[in-house]
């Protein structure tokens, strides 16, 4: 199980990386390599050239803006997991990271790599879609951005073009006082990709009424999905309202069937995990102080 031969280049700048990629249809980006290298080893991918962007300074770092946190593409998953800014401002990302692979793969795997790999059951893309993150791209013409739900097209397929690479992910920060997150997934073993994963984030007012809600599903269809449960805003996220909203949002969910789980399993469990994630998020928010800084 040895990869087919390739050239390896490690450009000094992002611009140079884009140039290298743009000029060569057989070039591919490598960063952490945790999903690419197995593909190379099995010769399911066989680029002629790997452009290593891992050490580009432009792609590193976690920055907080007024209404968003910008996570550099090469931020390692383990680093993000420990990062205080992410914990405080993108709690959903912090919540799912322990479920991404396992510790050694998180030590090498990057946030941008998981996004670019676009596995429909992966946790980081799920968070990006659920929260409405923006995927920032480096192109030969300079930076560009697109919403996560436009970025993901299908299983392992994104709208990225040759000559571009993911440079950062801009996660919106909710500014409400009382925010909670919920996350559940089912997989054969803990570290495996999820048959179904559901992530929820809610904001509550002092009276525990829902001010905002985001709910997403992974593993069910061909890419992560954000469900429209905006009807829950203003409710107390009681079981009945939640069930109605989730059912309405998931009636015509297309689910995949494979060796590990049938489509009907995925649909059924999706609904349940959505409700559980919402409830967990609600409970998480409800224990936060209603007033004052967190």
């Amino acid at each position, binding site marked *: 199980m*040895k990869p087919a031969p390739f050239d390896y280049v490690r450009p000094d700048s992002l611009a140079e990386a884009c140039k290298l990629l743009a000029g060569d249809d057989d070039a591919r980006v490598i960063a952490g390599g*945790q999903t690419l*290298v197995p593909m190379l080893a099995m010769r399911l991918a066989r680029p002629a050239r790997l452009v*290593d962007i891992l050490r580009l300074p432009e792609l590193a770092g976690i920055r907080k803006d007024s209404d968003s946190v910008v996570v550099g593409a090469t931020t390692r998953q383990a680093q993000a997991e420990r990062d205080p800014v992410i914990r405080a401002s993108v709690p959903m990302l912090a919540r799912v990271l322990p479920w991404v692979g396992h*510790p050694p*793969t998180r*030590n*090498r795997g990057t946030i941008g790599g998981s996004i670019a790999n676009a596995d429909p059951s992966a946790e980081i893309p799920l968070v990006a879609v659920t929260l409405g993150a923006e995927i920032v791209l480096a192109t030969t013409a300079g930076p560009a951005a697109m919403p996560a739900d436009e970025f993901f097209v299908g299983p392992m397929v994104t709208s990225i073009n040759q000559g571009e690479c993911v440079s950062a992910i801009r996660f919106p920060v909710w500014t409400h006082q009382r925010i909670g997150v919920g996350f559940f997934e089912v997989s054969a073993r803990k570290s495996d990709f999820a048959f179904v994963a559901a992530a929820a984030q809610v904001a509550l007012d002092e009276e525990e009424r829902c001010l905002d809600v985001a709910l997403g599903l992974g593993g069910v269809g061909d890419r992560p999905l954000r469900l429209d449960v905006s009807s829950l805003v203003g409710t107390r996220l009681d079981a009945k309202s939640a069930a109605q909203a989730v059912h309405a949002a998931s009636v015509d969910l297309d689910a995949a069937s494979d060796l590990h789980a049938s489509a009907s399993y995925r649909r059924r469990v999706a609904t349940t995990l959505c409700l559980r994630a919402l409830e967990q998020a609600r409970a998480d928010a409800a224990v936060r102080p209603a007033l004052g800084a967190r």
Partner: protein
Amino acid sequence: MMVDLRINGTVRSAELEPRKTLLDALREDFLLNGTHAGCEHGVCGACTVLLDGEPVRSCLLFAVQADGYEITTIEGLAPAPGELSVIQDAFCETHGLQCGYCTPGMILAAHALLQQTVTPTREEIVEAISANICRCTGYGQIVEAVQFAADRLRIANTPRALLSPGGSK
């Protein structure tokens, strides 16, 4: 291409094809056979090495990417020929292995954990070794080995005055 790697504290150089994984380079070019190939696609953990102290899969990293890191292999853990580290010795004490094939990776994963904490919970130990598949042991005696090593490291690092009579437990 020419690659310079810092392995177990020594800089080693070799002319390598870019497609050669760190795993293969360690074994074939630097003759460090303690790092094992189990799956070569990132699942089993037999190839685990430490990169700047953190466990990683050496089958998921090309050797040309590994410059600039401090690479530690199992050969780098024993303090001297014939002498075992506390963790290695603990694996012998509880028989935390059988065939020994997963063992170097398992020990490096445990080593990384115990660099972080000498008071790990069972859950933390399980999480730390969960990326390393052992087909022989069912993990019971491995978990015990890590617990045992943690106890010994904790005692070793505790001033005598703070040790209650009969040990630190």
